[in-house]
Each structure stands twice: as C-alpha cells, then as structure tokens.
C-alpha cells in the first residue's frame, strides 16, 4: 500500500492487510501527531488498510512563536538564562 507523508511530501510503500495503528508503529509515527486520511475522509487507528489502499499521514504540529512578556501586549520575554556552574 502507498503512504503519503508531508514536510517534505514523499511516498513510501508498506505492507497492507493490517490496522492503521500497526502501519504507524512501523513508520515510528506517534498517532497524536497526524491525521490519517483515506480518500476524502479520516479513518481511525483500528481500521484495516488493504494493499491497494493509499493513505495520507498529514502532520498536525505547527508552531515557532514565543510567548509575550508580562503585563504588555507585545514586547518579548528575555530568553531563559542558561544554567551556570554552582
């Protein structure tokens, strides 16, 4: 079966005839971090996927922005200080 991965977009072939959670385990992907898409809908981890299936594992994680500073709407926090020897 074909698995479409993102960031960067690529395709891998894996063995079908088993549950989605087993495919994710083989690919070392944490279920919480992806949507599993087959056709135009989502499928749950207990669903069986066949050799002729194509599924997309779409990552859900985003981020990068730092929190704002106390008491104001916009100035940033000072970066956390590194540890120093005691």
């Amino acid at each position, binding site marked *: 079966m074909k698995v479409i991965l993102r960031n960067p977009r690529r395709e891998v072939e894996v063995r079908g005839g088993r549950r989605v959670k087993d495919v994710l385990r083989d690919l070392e992907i944490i279920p*919480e971090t992806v949507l599993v898409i087959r056709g135009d*809908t989502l499928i749950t981890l*207990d669903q069986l996927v066949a050799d002729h299936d194509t599924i997309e594992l*779409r990552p859900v*994680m985003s981020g*990068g922005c730092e929190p704002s*500073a106390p008491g*104001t709407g916009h100035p940033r926090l000072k970066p956390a200080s590194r540890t120093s020897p005691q």
Partner: protein
Amino acid sequence: MKCRKCGQGAVIELRRHNAAFCTPDFLDFFRNQVREAIRRHRMFTADEQVLVAVSGGKDSLALWDVLIEDGYRTSGLYLDLGIFDYSIESRAKCERFAAERGVPLIVSRVADEVGAPVPVIKQVTRRPPCSGCGLSKRYLMNRVALEQGFPVVATGHNLDDEAATLFGSVLHWQTEALPRQSPMLPSTHPKLVRRVKPLYRLSERETAAYAFLRRIDYIVEECPFAKGATSIQHKEILSRLEEVSPGAKHNFLFGFLDRARAVFERVEAVDLHECARCGQVTTGTVCAFCKLSDQVKRAT
C-alpha cells in the same frame, strides 16, 4: 470504532475523552468546545466586532470558520511576514477563504511596518526568526485592532500550543510569564486590546481534523523557519507523554489554569507607558518594536 453519540462509523478517536465521533458529531463537539471557551471566559459578546488573526494555517482558519458559522461579526487580519513562497501561499489561502465567505480580510505587511521582511530581520538581529516574527505579530495585531476599532483580537492558539508554552515556562521557571498564560487576557491599558484564544480547549489534531472535515483549504506545509523551534520540540515531548498517558496535556494545562495560575499572579501592577516613538504600550520608554525597526533600518 463507533461514534459515541450516534453509533455510526467514527472518523476520529479522542482518547483523552475516551470517545470517538462521526463527522457531524465531531463538528458539533468542536463547535461546542469553542462556545464553552467563549462563554466560560467571557471572551466577547455577539455585539462585539472580533478581529481574527489568521495565518492560512488550520487553527486560525478553523477558528474563523466556527465564529462565522455562529454568527459573530468578524474580520480577518493576515500579517504578511514576507517568508518566500510560504507567505505567498498562506496569504492566497486567507484571501480565498475570506472571499468565499464574503467576510473582510485586512492585510498588513511586516516589511512595510518594520522596514524588512522576517528573513532579513533574522539576519539583522542574529536572533531566531520566531523572535522578531512573534514580536512583530503581537505589536501589529494590537495596533491594527486599535486603529480599526476592534475591542478584541482572537488567535488560533490551541491546547497543544498552550501546553507547550506552559511546559517551556515551567522548565525554566519563568514565573513572570505564568500569569500571562491565559485563554483570555483582558485589556489592562486603553491602548491594549483584549486577546482571546477560543481554541484552547481543543488539541492540534482536533483543529486539523475540523479543518479537513470542513474542507477548509489551509496551508499544510510548515513555516520554513519553524523547523527545530523550541516550541515544536516541546510539543513532540508532550505528544509522546500523551501517547502513553491520554489526557496528560489537557490535565497539565487545565490543572494550571484552574489551580496554579493564581499563585503566580503579581501583587504589584506592571507599570505601563506609551512608547515615546509610536505611542503603543510598553514597559520602557521606547517599545521593543520601535527598537527592532530602528535596528533593521540602520542595517538595510
């Protein structure tokens, strides 16, 4: 797996709620969580104009979609960061979303306001790109809202964002940051608008599922500068924890909000001034945004 509400085939399992839902019942669940957030924290009323900060990503567009569907009076604010093709594509998605629904979208270019786009700011400041980017976003969101008469800005921060921020703050015991970690930051100065996070009860996977099931065309590719960002690393750690202990992220964040946040509230008020240059709110004489803008203009 069956939907907890109707018994039909489920499309998504939410282990932290020990539940699975079909598409219509998941969409209902999602909208109800947003409504509960707005109600519980009195984020805004049906009479108020809400400025929704949108990036073209799943969270902010999902939020805007729910608010439009629920009849709120909203406008979008897209901040063009000038990050190569990523910004071109994400802006196009926001413009298409707004046009299809007949809602207004305000676009502000960071390059026009700071003097250079985020990639140049990164080079000039020699700091992580998220630093100058986040500063510019927070400043411009507030300023645009003030200038255009919006009492409140809504952002698409979700449960994972909030848990990761809390994790980072606790990891370094940044106690001054903890009182600011809230789904609703009230206006503490006439020139600071209220900031709210109506998605804070929903995980990143849930917002992605909502966006997908609602056929919202969002940008799946991550910001090229986000790779390796500390917040992403913290999210990965928390997701591994969630995998072995469903509900861990929820309990971490909600336990803090319900039982610990008040302990860190400051006794003394923060002294706020108006920036001598731009008039926006700052704790110093000249705000960080004006300093950044000066630094960029000197170097370019």
